[in-house]
């Protein structure tokens, strides 16, 4: 920094700048990518699961319809934190159980009874990226169930007259489905989906439960009081400052989402008669 700027801003500013640009803070800034990736891929998967769930709930084949209903009622009923903990662990152990069948000899299993995995060779070590992938799938399954209900409702909200008119024009079942039904469904689904998206964004703050060093974990680490010069800059309990930055981040994401969904609603409603445009 040039001297004149230093003189203008005072020595405190240079110190503060050095503090918020140290490696620990960069690790925190870098951790935002985990949250953003989890939001984007979690939402994409939630939309896929939501469409599949809604299709299942709408199916004429009875067992498939029941499967769709079972999915939405079970997953919506289980607390998301619980499911977030349950699914990655269950998946990891299922993979390890599968590996154990081919890799563990009977002697190896007998050598350490009562431990998991049955033998060290069957151990699947998960790093941050593996956990992140599992977190995205968990978010997709949880919020896919909500999205499925929203989309299912929106499908039913499309006026029957539109579908009848399409059939009267001689469209095939598939054409009615894609050109009229799904096409008009979005305008009814978007308000609900925007809600699901915002809840999903909030749930990205749970990543630290899966040993991912995410923004919440780093905010905690950076904010706890430090009394040791060996550790770095000495300060009191600053957690609220770091949590405040997270508040601001999530609020900005919310504002941006609202604008985005307004644009999407305009797009989905193009060419449709509607009072509120």
């Amino acid at each position, binding site marked *: 920094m040039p001297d004149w700027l230093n003189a203008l801003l005072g020595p405190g500013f240079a110190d503060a700048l050095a503090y918020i640009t*140290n*490696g*620990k*803070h*960069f*690790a*925190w800034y870098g951790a935002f990518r985990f949250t953003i990736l989890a939001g984007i891929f979690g939402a994409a998967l939630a939309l896929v699961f939501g469409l599949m769930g809604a299709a299942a709930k709408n199916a004429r084949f009875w067992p498939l319809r029941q499967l769709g209903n079972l999915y939405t009622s079970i997953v919506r009923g289980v607390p998301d934190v619980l499911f977030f903990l349950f699914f990655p662990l269950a998946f990891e152990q299922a*993979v390890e159980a*599968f*590996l154990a069948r*081919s890799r563990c000899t009977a002697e190896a299993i007998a*050598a*350490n009874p009562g*431990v*998991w*995995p049955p033998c*060290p*060779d069957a*151990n*699947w*070590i*998960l790093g941050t990226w593996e956990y992140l992938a599992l977190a995205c799938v968990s978010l997709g399954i949880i919020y896919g169930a909500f999205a499925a209900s929203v989309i299912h409702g929106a499908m039913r909200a499309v006026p029957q007259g539109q579908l009848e008119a399409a059939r009267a024009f001689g469209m095939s079942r598939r054409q009615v489905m894609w050109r009229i039904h799904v096409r008009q469904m979005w305008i009814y689904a978007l308000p609900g989906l925007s809600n699901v998206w915002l809840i999903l964004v909030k749930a990205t703050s749970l990543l630290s439960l899966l*040993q991912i*060093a995410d923004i919440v974990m780093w905010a*905690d*680490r950076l904010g*706890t*009081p*430090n*009394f*040791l*010069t*060996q*550790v*770095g*800059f*000495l300060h*009191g*309990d600053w*957690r609220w400052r770091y949590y405040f930055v997270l508040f601001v981040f999530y609020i900005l994401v919310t504002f941006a989402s609202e604008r985005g969904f307004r644009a999407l609603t305009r797009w989905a409603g193009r060419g449709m008669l509607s009072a509120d445009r």
Partner: protein
Amino acid sequence: MKKLLAAAAIVALTGTAANAQQIRLGTEGAYAPWNFMNDAGEVDGFEIELGNTICERAGLDCVWVTNEWDSIIPNLMAGNYDAIMAGMSITEERMQSIDFSEDYYPPDPSVFLMAADASFDFDNLSGVRIGVQTSTIQAGYAEENFADGNTILSYETADQAVADLSAGNIDMVMLDPPYLQPIADGSGGALKIDGPAIPIGGGVGIGLRKADDDLETTFNATLDELKADGTLDALISKWFDTGPFYSEM
């Protein structure tokens, strides 16, 4: 589904094959000066330097993994890492589920941190709010001896307990002196260590899975070497200033 599992199997296979000789060391990263995150955002501290020294002497390729204290023993047993170096005292209770190397920090009595103007009658403590870290030897001791008439609050990290003490939400924190002493010294006279020193725990050791006898032998041999040539004492004096030293025993 089969294809997916096979793909996962291949990923896992290559993953473990590449790391066959790598020893994964688990730590908490929130218990300065034992282990903490330095300004560069990397794990640092007494145990990090000691662990790296042990691995270098023993010719092992080691990497550090951070894990929350709460689940540090279950995740060792689940194989997420091969050894724990996280200021963990050797106790009978823990020995039922895991093994320990010999100690690398001698037994050190636990102490209490409190506000500088506070004073308590430790012979009949009552109505006091005591902060401890979950699943520590101090937490066990406090539950056994102070639970009657006092409130015991368990925190996930030691830092959180101290933060709550500074905020005046609790009356005292019970933990290891190497963690609490620098906090009292660095608090500018706001906090002090007072009350009895309570001898619990059998020193700090490396936690290992019961089946990993070879690793335990390697660690013990290297620790013996480091104790004999004064390297370990030098590390203790570097990170804790004072401390019980092995040369004095």
